Each structure stands twice: as C-alpha cells, then as structure tokens.
C-alpha cells in the first residue's frame, strides 16, 4: 500500500517510492521522446536520401513508366417513336484533344495544331484555362466534327506533336427534329454540379440530357463508361495498350409518340403564332402527339452550337424553347364548364332537366357578370354545354361552391403535374379558399366562385392537363399520361373515378352536341369521316379583365382560343386539347386544329397497331448498374 510521506515528524524517513517513480518516469519519458525524435531523424535522412541524393535516378524511372487510364464514354441509348422510327441516335464524331501533361508546351502544341485545324482565340483560351484548372492527365477537347482529311492528317503527324490525341466519339443527331424538339429535348455539356457527381462527365465533349426525355431518362440513356489502360512514354506517346473494359451502351427508349401524327400536328398549328396541341390515347394514357409552336431544331443546340444562334433562340420573344403543352398555363375558359357541370351534378345542386333563363347578364349582389350571348329561356345542362351559356354555369358554380368545384377539378386530374418524363411541367392552378389565404392572405369572395365556374379568374391549366381532364371525362377512369413505353407494361387499367356514370353521360352528351348538333359552338368542326363523331368543348378565355383590356394592343389583347375533344363519340379512344395563344375564338382557331389532328389519328389508328419493342437485353444490366451507383 502506498503510504503518505511523513511530513511533520522526525525519525528515519521511509523512501518516497512514489516520488522516485515520478522522477523515473520523467527521465524515461524524455529518453523515449529523444528516441522518437531520433527515429524521425532516421525518416528524414531516408527522405533526404530518396528525394535529394537519388532523386534524378528515380525521376528517370518515374518518366519511364507512365500509364494512363482513360475512361471510355458509353454510347447513349437511342430514342424511338412508338413504331420504331429513330428519333435520336448517335453519329460518328471525329475529335481532336490534348493531354496538357504530355505537351512540351501547350501553346506550342496548339500552334502546330492550328496549321491543320483552325483554332479560334476563344477555343485557345478555353483549352488553356481548362488545362490550368484540372489535372494535366485529363484530356481537353480542342475541336470536334473534323473532316476525314483533317483527321487523317493529324494521325499522320501525331508523332511530331506531343500531347495530341485524336479519337472517334459520337454526337447526338435528331431526326424529325422540329416536331419532336420539345418532347425529346436535347443534350449538352454537363453543368458543374453534375460533373462533380459522375467522373464520366469530365470526359471532354461528354453530353448529358438538358431537357425533355433526354434529361428525364438521362440515367437510363447514358450507359456506363469503360476504361482503357495505356502505357505511354515520356512524351505521352502510347507504347501499348495494357487492357480495357468495354463501356456499356445506354438503354434504348421507345416513346408513345407517333412521329407522323406529331409532324401533322405541328404542321397544323404552324399557322398560329403560339399554339400547342396534345393528343392522348385514353385507354393507356400514352401521349401520341404533343406539339408546340414555335419549335426549334435541337440539332443546332446539341452539337457545335453557334453562340449567336443560341442567344437568339433563348431570348426570342415567343420563347421557342418552351414546351407550351406542359409549361403554358392558361385560363381554361369555357372548357372548364365540363368540370363545373360535373361538379354541380355530383353535388346534387342542379338537375339535368332543370331549365334556366339566360338574359345575357348575371347579377350577384351589386356585381354584373355577362354572358357572351343572351340565350333566352329553356337552358338545361345539355343546352348550356352545347351553347356554352355562361349564366347557367355562373349559377351552377355559385350553388356548388368553390370547395366542391376545386375537388371535382382535381378528381379530373387538374392542378397537378404528372411527371411522365418531361422537364419543367407546370402545375396549373385550381384555386380554393385555403390556397387564397395562404398565397394572397385574403378571404375568398363569392364573385370569384362565379367566374371560376367558367374557367376564368384564378383558374389555370396546361394543355396536357386539359387533355387528361377530357380523357377522364371520356372514360370515367383516372387516366394518367405516359410518354415512354416500358416493355413489361401491364395493360393499364386506371381506377374508376368517383362519379356517377349517369352524370358523366350527361356531360358527354352535351359535348356531343357542341360538335354535332345545330347551335353547337363547334358545329363547323365536325369530323368528315362517315359514321364517326367527335365530342368537344370550345373555350375562349380572356387574357385580362375587360376593365384593363384597353391597355393591351393588337395580338396580345386577343383572347386565347381553346378546344378539348375526344372521339369516337360512343367508344372513346383518343382525346385532344389545343390552345392557340391569342387566337381569338375557340371555335374558329382551336377546334379546326383538333378536328384535323383527330381525323388523322382516327384514320391512322396508332393505338390499334402493335408498338415497337427496343432490343435492350444486352444493355439493361449496364443501365441498371448506372442507376444503382448513382444512389
């Protein structure tokens, strides 16, 4: 037992072992510390020997064995339309690269290269900057799209130009480019954030999806990169290939789009300044055509884009890069009356036989809401839809209330995005009291319910949403749009909507009247195919309240023209929606477009024919691996 040292009494002192131990520890700790320092000195001596004395010898050895491992970009999967027409494919691209680490002097190399391939000052700048920024063993792209002549010349001169590389990679080419532009999108250089995520993005000239299907399905399309190991000498010349792992091609995609219908649709709406049309298969939700004008040519953007042209495209007043079918949010106008009618019927506040009188104006408190025409007495649900009587729907909306109206609209698929593989879908807007309180900090006014009943006020919808809505009315099922075919697709059977089929039938009959009965608003747009009828609903929506209309002039002051339809009337197969921005009346501008596109669809019947199946067996594991590693 350790004892306390005697402090205050005399006699023979017991040795203070604890203190001795402390001193011994101090001595030995210093000894160990000195030993450690000495051993570190040994390390320093070793480093001195290696790095100072024998450095030149080791430097030679290091120069002798240089090996580069290069990533091999995978080929991007192709994109087909539903019948196997190639929409996006890879073409050969001859390129010139430099490896800065192997150049004697990078500017010198660029000078010698510029004798064969013109190198602009901007390119030169870009190459020099890239060489400074990243490790010298990542190749930097100098030029692409070389001619065979240039390519051959460069390969002959390769031994004389250190650090130079040529290779044959692919570039993306789009067929049926303009009609498919908005749907397919295009590829481009990856942004900085993406480069940090996947090393393959660092490959010079590697392209990744920027918009549309190319972006949404980028992971599937991309494939996974391979590697090649080279042994190179001090000048960067390849001595031999040491081994390689091939890249895996990306998965092929088959769209539900029929490129022929798509072309017809775009050609048909081209006469308008800004317009879009969507055609859907109501049974599967497959989008058969989705055209938006003005369109653009993705080939000009995806490969060797001209900066001036790009700027012009991006800044153009009518925004050709925007896909109006999913990004254009319009007041749906009278097309929304289909929703209001269904809401009124399902709430039990109107009876389909009940008639109202339309004096051409509707009074709510001190406010007056006008109808586009004084329809007179005897307006029931069928007549109201057929003749698009505003007063009838003002009253219906008032009786139904905004909450049930909004719920019905949502049940019909409005006010949301579908994420079916397109980029930048807008949700539209189905207003209710909660929304207004949260967004505008205001209570809901009854007058707003009244104008919401005819699709004005806060209500907004995209053409795709309108197409979904009319598909749901036509089938009574919760149809969802789809853009890409998948091999093991179950035969889609969407769940039944929560509506009495009788009410849906009343609404459909009204829509039948719009096109096929006298006094229907779209009587002139009936199909000309014998025995086949189309049901539809016109819409003409005001851009601003009539109070401010005088502030806008010309094109911008005109109303939007809308039309929604499905056909054949009694066995619906196709649904369509068309919006012509500032096109005037729905029956004049939009209905004829839908009639023509619908006629083409019915005669061609794409939904009735077997779709193309891409051969993806070989590529599928690679694609899966990429998805897996990205998690």
């Amino acid at each position, binding site marked *: 037992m350790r004892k306390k040292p005697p402090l205050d009494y005399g006699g023979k002192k017991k040795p203070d072992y604890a203190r001795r131990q402390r001193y011994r520890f*101090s001595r030995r700790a210093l000894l160990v*510390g000195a030993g450690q320092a000495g051993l570190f000195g040994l390390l320093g001596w*070793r*480093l001195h020997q290696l790095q100072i004395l024998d450095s030149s010898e080791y430097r030679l050895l*290091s120069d002798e*064995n240089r090996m580069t491992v290069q990533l091999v970009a995978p080929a991007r999967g192709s994109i087909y339309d539903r019948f196997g027409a190639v929409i996006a494919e890879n073409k050969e691209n001859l390129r010139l690269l430099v490896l800065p680490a192997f150049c004697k002097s990078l500017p010198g190399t660029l000078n010698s290269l510029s004798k064969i391939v013109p190198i602009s000052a901007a390119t030169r700048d870009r190459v020099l900057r890239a060489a400074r920024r*990243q490790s010298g063993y990542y190749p930097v792209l100098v030029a692409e799209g070389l001619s065979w002549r240039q390519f051959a010349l460069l390969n002959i001169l390769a031994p004389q130009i250190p650090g130079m590389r040529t290779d044959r990679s692919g570039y993306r080419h789009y067929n049926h480019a303009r009609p498919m532009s908005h749907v397919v999108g295009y590829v481009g250089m990856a942004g900085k954030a993406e480069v*940090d995520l996947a090393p393959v993005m660092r490959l010079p000239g590697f392209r990744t999806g920027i918009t549309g299907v190319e972006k949404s399905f980028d992971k599937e399309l991309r494939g996974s990169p391979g590697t090649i190991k080279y042994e190179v000498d001090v000048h960067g010349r390849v001595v031999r290939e040491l081994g390689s792992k091939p890249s895996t091609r990306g998965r092929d995609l088959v769209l539900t789009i029929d490129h022929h219908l798509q072309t017809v649709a775009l050609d048909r709406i081209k006469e308008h300044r800004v317009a879009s049309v969507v055609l859907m298969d109501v049974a599967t939700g497959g989008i058969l055509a989705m055209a938006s004008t003005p369109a653009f040519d993705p080939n000009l953007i995806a490969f060797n884009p001209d900066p001036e042209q790009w700027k012009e495209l991006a800044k153009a007043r009518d925004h050709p890069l925007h896909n109006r079918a999913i990004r254009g949010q319009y007041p749906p106008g009278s097309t929304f009356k289909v929703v209001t009618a269904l809401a009124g019927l399902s709430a039990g506040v109107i009876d389909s036989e009940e008639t109202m009188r339309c004096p051409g104006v509707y009074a709510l408190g001190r406010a007056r809401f006008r109808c586009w025409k004084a329809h007179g007495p005897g307006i029931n649900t069928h007549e109201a839809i057929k003749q698009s009587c505003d007063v009838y729907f003002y009253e219906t909306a008032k009786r139904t209330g905004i909450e049930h109206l909004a719920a019905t609209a949502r049940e019909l698929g409005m006010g949301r995005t579908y994420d079916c593989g397109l980029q930048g879908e807008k949700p539209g807007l189905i207003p209710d009291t909660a929304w207004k309180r949260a967004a505008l900090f205001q209570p809901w006014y009854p007058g707003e319910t009244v104008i919401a009943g005819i699709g004005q006020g806060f209500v907004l919808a995209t053409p795709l949403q309108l197409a979904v809505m009319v598909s749901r009315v036509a089938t009574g099922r919760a149809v969802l749009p789809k853009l890409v075919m998948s091999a093991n697709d179950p035969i889609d059977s969407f769940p039944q909507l929560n509506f009495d089929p009788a009410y849906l039938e009343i609404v459909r009959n009204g829509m039948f009247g719009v096109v096929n009965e006298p006094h229907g608003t779209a009587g002139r747009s009936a199909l000309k195919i014998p025995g086949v009828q189309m049901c539809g609903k016109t819409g003409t929506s005001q851009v601003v309240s009539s109070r401010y209309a005088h502030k806008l002039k010309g094109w911008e002051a005109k109303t939007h023209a809308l039309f929604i339809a499905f056909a054949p009337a009694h066995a619906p197969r196709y649904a369509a929606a068309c919006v012509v921005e500032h096109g005037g009346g729905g029956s004049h501008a939009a209905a004829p477009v839908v009639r023509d596109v619908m006629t083409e669809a019915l005669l061609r019947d794409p939904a009735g024919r077997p779709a193309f199946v891409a051969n993806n067996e070989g590529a599928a594991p690679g694609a899966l691996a990429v998805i897996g590693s990205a998690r």
Partner: protein
Amino acid sequence: MKMLFAEVPAPKLDLRKKLWLINWPFIALIVAIALVGAAALYSVAGGSLDPWASRQIVRFCFGLALLFAVAFSDIRWWLRAAFPLYLVALVLMILVPLIGVESGGATRWLGYGEFSFQPSEMMKMALVLALARYYQWLPPEKIWRPDALVPPALMIGLPTLLALAQPDLGTAMLFAVIGGGLMFLAGVSYFYFAAGIAAVIVALPHAWEALHDYQRERILTFIDPERDPLGSGYHILQSKIAIGSGGLTGKGFMQGTQAQLNFLPEKHTDFIFTMFAEEMGFIGAVGLLALYLLALLFITYMALRCRSIFARLVAAGMGLTLFTYVFINVAMVTGLVPVVGVPLPLVSYGGTSMLTMIVGLGFVLNAHVNRRVVFRPEETRTLW
C-alpha cells in the same frame, strides 16, 4: 519541489475550468494535420472532393466531437472503466476467429450486416488504459519484483497472440511495442528489458518458421525489392520511385504522375504519404513529419505535467501509439521496414483508424485537463 507535489485534495473541475485547462494549440495542430490529409485526399481523387476528401472531413468533424467528449469526461470514470473495457475488448478479440468476417485471407472484423468493426482497434485503446490502471494500482516499491511483471505480460501477450492468429502482424507488433514502452515508462527495471530482447533474438528463428508465407514473402522482398519488381516488390519499388521523383520541391499539387497515373497501390490509404511526398517534395514531406513530431513533443510535455501515474501513462501510451503508427507507415513507404499495412494517422482514408487515433488523442487531452488529479488508494484498490 515538495510544495509542488504536496498531496492536496484535487480541485473539482467544472466544464468552464476544463475549457480553460485544455491544450488548444495541440488541438490546432491536430486540425492542421487532418487538413493536410484532406488536401492529399482531394489530390488523390484527381482534384475532387469525391469520393474520399469530403467523407474524411465529415468523419474528422465527428471525431473532433468525440475528442472533446473524451477530453472533458471525468478521468476517474476511465480509471474505473479501464479493466472492464480491456476485458470486453479481449472477449471480442477471442470472438473474431469464431464468428468474424473473413476478407483478404485474414479474419479481423466483427460484423453484422452493414455494420462492422475491428476489435483490435478497440484493444489498442483498452491496452493502454489497462496497463496505466495496473501501474496506478501497483505500489511503486513493488515494481522491481518479478511477480509484478506477470499481469502486464499477460495483458500484452494475450492480445498480441490473438492478433498474430488473425493473422495481423502489424497490429501484433503494435501491441508489443506499446505494451513494452508503457512498462518501460512505468519504471520496470532495465534488466528485464535486456533479458526480453535476448529472448526475442533466441526466439526469432522459431518465429520465422511460424510465419505465414505471405509474411515471409513481405520480409524477403523488403530486404531486396528488386527481387521481383512486378510481384510483391512492386509496391515498395513504385513507392520509392514516386517519393524519389518528387525531389526537393515536388511535382506540384495534383501533378504527381505516379499517383495520378495509378502506379501507386492503396494511394488513398496506406500509401498516401508517398503521394504527398511525390507532389510536395522533400520540403512538404519533412514539413508533415515535423507536424507529427511537434504533436509528439506536445504529448510528452503533457504527460510530464500530470501528477498521477495513470494520467501520465495514458498520455504517454497514446503518444507511443501515434508515434508507432507514423513511424511504421513512413518507414514502410520509404522502404525501411516491410509493408505491414499500417495507416498514416489522421491523413489516410479510413473511418476506424481515424476514430481510434482521435479518441486516443482525446485521452491525452483528458489526462492533460486532469493533470492535477491524484487518486486516493481506495480508488485504485477495486477492479472497477
């Protein structure tokens, strides 16, 4: 001197006092070394935070929190926990050959699903604590007696043998060096060490017989790396070429050809010093070693200032661990000792070794914070 060591009751330490007592320059030094490591990992990945540097930084921050937690904890708690911790570590090490996960010809890991851990890492800490605890208990006048050597010899010998059985030569050597060093510091007579060294020399030929083929191969290629430059000598040779070609000033950050061209094996873990020396040259490499040496001097200084033998031995023992790691790693990549697979503390990529080391440094700081604490005999008499 007598006044200085007069046994007055230890002051109660609250967190504010502890914050004041902790050695902040030492913490700054640790952070500096870890930052060098992060920069090296950034370079190894070809100028990218992924996949190593970012994760390493996150782990280090987590480790730093752990370091503070250990540093501010009560040293009496660790005094009580020392033997139980050792026992748990020993049991886990015994379990490893029975239910462990095999990888690369060695069974070192205990794991269930995603989670896995190496009991030998825990043992490194537990061994230091247990030995320090033993000498705190042992009356100083009995330290010379041969029977006082039996418990520490067993405490060191069992884990060493278990590590050899895994087989993990590096860890076994580490246990032996740390254990021996602690016994030396505690004051065991020089005579016993002389006898021990003599015994090792006698036993060496027999040990050679017991070694695995790959371990013999490593030692043989260490003696003559050029024997088989594309086989087992490859690592050492390439590492030496990389370090040597760095020269005085190095090839520049992210410009190391050996590392960037994938000539180096394990360049982000055990061979990260090679890459660092290649890119930063003699100046950078010696600078990094100087940082470690400074840290070791700090630890020695902190150990000397402690009053209880437990705190002294804990601090010094952790210092020995740090030193052994750094020395073996750098000596290994420069071709001074065989390749045994020891990481460079705080710099090499890897969660377990980083955490072990940083917890060890936490114990050093704990000893430093509690440098004036002395234990009453009755506190050391019980086993826990």
